[in-house]
């Protein structure tokens, strides 16, 4: 449902990331379909799915996936530039200030801590105002304290933006913060 936060929970190897990939149109199932905002995902070709992602989806990854040759500002600007938005720099600057990195705009990923890198990734994801945000183990590479701060920030931004959140995690306590949980085991949803 729109604005909902759904957690996909399961042990390592249960198929969480695979499911996420299918739901985002990054992977193609052997059978079945996915419908996002009324659109049948797998009736679109690869470029069609990419265009849908551009319009509707945002991503946060466990490994941050920042481009190392770009500084923090440029990483956040990138999706705006790809979408051809005019005021990419201003929007990106505002979002980085929102996540507390206003003083680190010109820093490269290699000079940022893990927590800071994930903040940049959050800013990058939310700057496009996605309708659906997919987060794959966003705290997997962070220590407990940093991870907790990142999760708080994630939920804050999510509430501000009114985005629907799909969170993949193996952490039960994190899953509990979401309004609904979906459990996976060996590739199947379990009650």
């Amino acid at each position, binding site marked *: 449902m729109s604005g909902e936060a759904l957690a996909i929970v399961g042990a390592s190897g249960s198929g969480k*990331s695979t499911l*996420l*990939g299918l739901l*985002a149109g*990054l*992977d193609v199932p052997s059978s079945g379909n996915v419908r996002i905002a009324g659109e049948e995902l797998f009736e679109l070709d*690869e*470029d069609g799915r*990419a*265009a*849908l*992602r*551009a*319009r509707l*989806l945002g*991503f946060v*990854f466990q490994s941050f*996936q920042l*481009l*190392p*040759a*770009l500084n923090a500002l*440029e990483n956040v600007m*990138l*999706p705006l*530039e*790809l*979408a*051809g938005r005019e005021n990419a720099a201003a929007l990106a600057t505002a979002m980085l200030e929102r996540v507390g990195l206003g003083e680190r705009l010109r820093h490269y990923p290699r000079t940022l801590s893990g927590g800071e890198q994930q903040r940049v990734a959050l800013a990058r994801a939310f700057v*496009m105002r996605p309708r659906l945000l997919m987060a*794959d183990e966003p705290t997997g590479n962070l220590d407990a304290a940093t991870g907790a701060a990142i999760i708080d920030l994630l939920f804050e931004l999510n509430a501000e933006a009114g985005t629907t959140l799909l969170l993949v995690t193996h952490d039960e306590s994190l899953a509990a913060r979401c309004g609904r949980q979906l459990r996976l085991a060996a590739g199947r949803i379990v009650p």
Partner: protein
Amino acid sequence: MATLGLAWRMLLRDWRAGELRVLALALVLAVASVASVGFFADRVRQALAREAQQLIGADLVVQGDRPVRGELRDELARRGLRQAQSVGFVSMARKGEAAQLAGVKGVSEGYPLRGRLRIAPQVNTPDAPATGIPAPGTVWVDERLAATLGARVGDAIELGNSLFKVGAILTMEPDRGASFFNIAPRLMLREDEVAATGLVQPGSRIWYTLLASGEREPVAQFEAWLKPKLARGENLQSLENARPEVRASIDRSQQFIGLTALLAVILAAVAVGLSTRRYSQRHLDGYAVMRCFGASQSRLFALFAWEFLLLGAAAAIVGGLAGYAAQYVIAAMVSGLMLVELPQPTLLPALQGMLVGMALLLGFSLPPLLQLKNVPALRVIRRDVGAPQQGALAGYAAGTLTIAGLLIWQAGDTKLGLIVLGGFILAGVVFAGFGYAALHGLARFSAGGGLSWRYGLASLRRRAGANTIQILALSLGLAAILMLTFTRGDLLETWRSKVPADAPNRFVVNIQPEQRAGVLEVFRDNKLAEPQVYPMIRGRYTAKNAQAVSESEFEDRARRLVEREFNLSYMAVKPAHNSIVAGRWFTDEDQKNGALSVEEGIAKTLGWKLGDVLGWQVAGRSFSAPITSVRKLDWDSMRVNFFVIATPGLLADFPASFVSSFHLPPGDSTFTSKLSQAYTNLTVVDMSAIMAQAQALIEQVVRAVQFVFLFALGAGVLVLYAALLATQDERMQEAAVMRALGASRAQVVAAQRAEFAALGIISGLLASAAAVAIGWAVAHFVFQFPYRMNGWIWLAGPALGLACVGYNAWSGARAALGRPPILALREA
């Protein structure tokens, strides 16, 4: 437009991160290498076209070995064209005790018809255009002759039987060529005063030149009239083919320098391919992320393609500018070959260089970029998908064909281009094969060494593919440099040492029959050994086996031989420095009937065989005789050699001059002048001075080639660096694992140094071996003397190799140890 803007920003960002520098530098080197040679060639072409009139001193020139026919002079007058004449020969100029071989040129009023002579009142004073030709009783000498004779303007100089006053110092003679005649310093006098010198004798080698100028159409009509009427021994030069000997030497130099420039292009192509492959690998994740954000495959490919095109354009411009600067160096190095001032080049070579750069980019960057295109967005979640295929060499086929086409185009001749292409391919295969074998072989000998040494050598074998490319690139560049330094020096030194210390170093020509005894007496009086004296008769080759011979049947050198007169000789006894390779020396029967003995090289050039009956014309009379022997000559003996020797009965009755060679001990500076004072018509040629001068000219071309090879060496080092970067991530991870397992920083550095040292030494040794092998082949097959190798080459090669990999070793160690191991392990 938006895509272009984003591509530009991506380029700036990647440049800032150091991602594209090797690629850019490789393109700059390739473009600069081709453009520098292209700019130089363009300047020379423009100069030859612009200065063609000056280069021949007229619009049209007829040159021959007989006095100018009255028929030609009359026809020029009838057509209202201006005309002038000159006559040229070499002879001894004397002032007091000093004597010097000079290129004597007698000129008529009106010379030159195009261009201006320049003269100065003394040596090292400002010159000015001459307003005419030397006044009666005076000569103009160039600075070199003035210096050798110690002559100033106003001094007296003897030439043959005549005494002249030096009227001016000749500083500029635009139609001076590059032949032997023009290597000697110049003495210019009036043509109508040549006869009085007594130097024009039967058998003398004289060039007679008729110059013509006028409006374009009448000159063209005269040329059309003259062409079918040209006699044997006459040749016609017009603006299109002015100074063929100058054009030929310049063309050959340009051809060779152009081909060497392409070695840099070939190595740069490897660097471009390696660095683009690395770029692709490092952008796999970023590409997948952008696919995640919604960028389509085609949009992303367009972004990357534009980014590379913009980089290519920028690198091509920089390369063009660098090439423009570099061509000044080439021009300065070969200034001795140039006779005229070179104008500024056009932009065309820059465009050609840029095209080469863009062709390299398309041919060697596109294949790895195309692989990037296939990376799926799923890679953001599953890093095991989307890795590019290894190998896929077929993707580089277009680029390889482009380079092959460039080689053939630059060679200017398909056959030569294919030979050079084949040579490069063979060199590549041989170097790569030996390099690969050496890597594996060396790794086997690592047992017994320390940990670092063993690990370093094992790494060599583990990364054999990348290391082989590095060895290939570096050893090619090093081999070229070693060949042009050590091997060239060795060959020259061996050749010099082959000539005995007491070998003849002077030739004396134009000895008249009645002077023979007296000349030999001069030798005896000066306590020098009497030299062997040979008769020389000038004759023209007219028929073979009763069929008349025409120069149109021949090409190039053969044609030139047939057009000119031969220097024939006769003798009953075979010269000691000649050996018979076919047939037999003159028997009594041959002496009675008449026979010929010919040199094997000229026989091959002109298609002469044993038993052929050759017809000759000498002094208006004809004779013919069969070939009964073929001789091999020892040119290095520095003794007098004849292509054609007849039995005495055939030629003894013809007017002849005599020629000889002798050894003048060093330090004896007066014998030559004594001889020429006693016999003023003699010409004494100092062979060592002539050879030194010719060698100086060749040295200039070699230096220019060495300079251009530096581009190739630079490209070779760049390939090394690109290959280092391509394996850097792997090295960093290995170093992290080593350190996690307890290895010290020193051990990690030592292992990397061992690997690079081995690379440098293998490359250097391969380069040394190649230079020695090629030196041996040239000595054995071309010069036919044993090759004496300089042992230092085996040290120089590895030393240079180590120097080239030194930076790589330092940079690699810095990268491997620059980050905490945990970070490298996490990113694996």
